[in-house]
């Protein structure tokens, strides 16, 4: 697996992490970083190199003050995968492969940033066989890619365990990538988002273009629900195609509203192909 290098993206936190692990992110831990925290009396931080004479002249009563800094720290990046049966769907792209690509890119990027990475996967149970504890060892991204490709997505499974995955997340605020097709019940989605509301959740929405955009132009088709086994008859024509597209657009808006409501970041929609550059832009600019 040495030749395979996952795509790399960059992320930035809008909050200060807590933790002693040295890393690239701003933390609340005082230390020797470059982030200026404030002036403190000399005796609180007796470091003559940080002595600020101009500030010392301004304080009353007169005394020596020194500049204090925050430490740069590391966080744990979690990838929370929805491996319900609907993720077996393969249209113009195979969702499972996409899942593996994205997860290994997250693992790769986070370890390159000095953060630890941990993998959680849920269907109706938390999938312990796919669990990877927080770690920043080398070669993990490639291992995870292989692991997800080899993993079995069982039939007739929902994603009911998603809210319970919080039990395996450390209490410190972390960056959580929630990767799913978001074909979830409203209640399940709101429970998931609220249970993870203490963390910085980045929803990644995997939709295939053949789900709503790249439909046959005309003809009668029957579709079977992967998860619940229901069936629907569709006589595809221009009006129905517009309705389907409209329904997905509405879902998009609904997801955005919902994520905003629960304090998650704006969802990032991935269609057919994962482009790390776009994700970087989304993470650095849009949210």
């Amino acid at each position, binding site marked *: 697996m040495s030749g395979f290098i996952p795509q790399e993206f960059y992320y930035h936190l809008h909050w200060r992490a807590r933790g002693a692990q040295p890393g690239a992110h701003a933390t609340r831990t005082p230390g020797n970083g470059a982030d200026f925290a404030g002036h403190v009396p000399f005796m609180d931080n007796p470091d003559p190199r940080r002595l600020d004479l101009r500030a010392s002249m301004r304080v009353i009563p007169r005394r020596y003050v020194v500049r204090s800094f925050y430490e740069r720290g590391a966080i744990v990046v979690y990838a929370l995968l929805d491996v319900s049966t*609907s*993720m*077996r*769907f393969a*249209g113009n792209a195979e969702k499972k492969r996409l899942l593996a690509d994205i997860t290994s890119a997250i693992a790769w990027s986070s370890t390159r940033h000095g953060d630890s990475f941990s993998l959680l996967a849920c269907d109706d149970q938390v999938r312990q066989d796919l669990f990877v504890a927080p770690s920043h060892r080398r070669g993990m991204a490639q291992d995870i890619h292989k692991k997800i490709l080899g993993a079995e997505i069982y039939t007739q499974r929902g994603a009911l365990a998603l809210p319970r995955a919080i039990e395996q997340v450390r209490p410190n605020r972390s960056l959580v990538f929630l990767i799913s*097709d978001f*074909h979830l019940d409203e209640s399940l989605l709101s429970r998931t988002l609220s249970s993870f509301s203490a963390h910085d959740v980045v929803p990644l929405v995997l939709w*295939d273009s*053949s*789900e*709503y955009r*790249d*439909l*046959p*132009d*005309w*003809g*009668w*088709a*029957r*579709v*079977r*629900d*992967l*998860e*619940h086994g*229901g*069936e*629907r*008859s*569709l*006589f*595809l024509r221009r009006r*129905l195609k517009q*309705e*389907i597209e409209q*329904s*997905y657009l509405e*879902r998009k808006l609904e997801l955005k509203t919902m994520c905003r409501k629960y304090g998650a970041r704006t969802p990032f929609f991935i269609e057919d192909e994962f482009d790390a550059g776009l994700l970087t832009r989304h993470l650095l600019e849009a949210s």
Partner: protein
Amino acid sequence: MSEFLQNAGAGLYAPGWLALAILCLVPLLVRGHHAFPYPAIVRLPEDELSVWLERLWRWAGALSIIALAIALSGPYWGEQQIEKVGRGAHIMIVLDRSASMNDSFADTREKNDAEPKMATARRVLQSFVQQSREDLLGMVTFSTSPILVAPLGGDREAVLAALRATEAGGMGFTAVARGLGMALDYFEGKPVTGARAILLVSDGGAHLDVKTQDLLREMFHRQNASLYWVYLRSANGASLKDAPEDENRDAYPEYQLHEYFQSLGVNYHVYEAESPQAVEEAITDISKLKNQPVKYYEATARQDLAWMFYLIALLCTAALFALHLTEVKRWRAV
């Protein structure tokens, strides 16, 4: 409803095939057909037209199976027993065409307008055929051997044409027995829906041996046919009224035949005609005699309804095929 069906005479020819109709549940219940997997149909709108198309698809399949099962079981309607009163009779005309028929009648006072017996018989029979409306007629001519010219039926034109054909003139001998035998044969297997009569028009007799006599008697009894003999007496022919001397019996085959017919035990009338007028009178008499009404039941032809169900099945299958043609084969934009 069932009473109405019974009155309409509806029924099934082979109801066992109806068991196949149970197969109509297959298209209604089975869900084995091809469907594209989709992550979440909740996202798809419920489309009225598509839902009805699905229902049409299922019901067309069920209906075509039901229609086929019914069609296989052979439905019909309209079989009814209709009571009919038959006024007509079944008459086989047995016409003698032997050479002697070309002679004129016994009672010929004016020799110049003497009409051959055949011509008279033809004329009178023609008018008889044209008058009789409800009769079934048939005709056999005989001379040396019998010839069937028109089988027993309602086709008057055929009989008239046969009569016209006798203008060719007679020839040969008088084989009465074979002519009668053939005529009686044509009653065989026909329903008895009217009085049966054999109208024998001849001018002379023939010797019948004992075997033939027995055979004919047996046939007459079996067919229960009356016999009317119009005897056209020739100028030198003997009258049937006065019995000949015992020693001369063999010289008068007519009288022997008459005696045999009397001994048959069936309804028998003889009309001795010496002139064309007498023939006409005899025929008028006969046409009155035979008009005894007969009540009988007749089954009207039933109408086969299978084609209708086959048509329904065909239409349903055509609808299924049309739906199949509109089916999406690949889940891709073209």
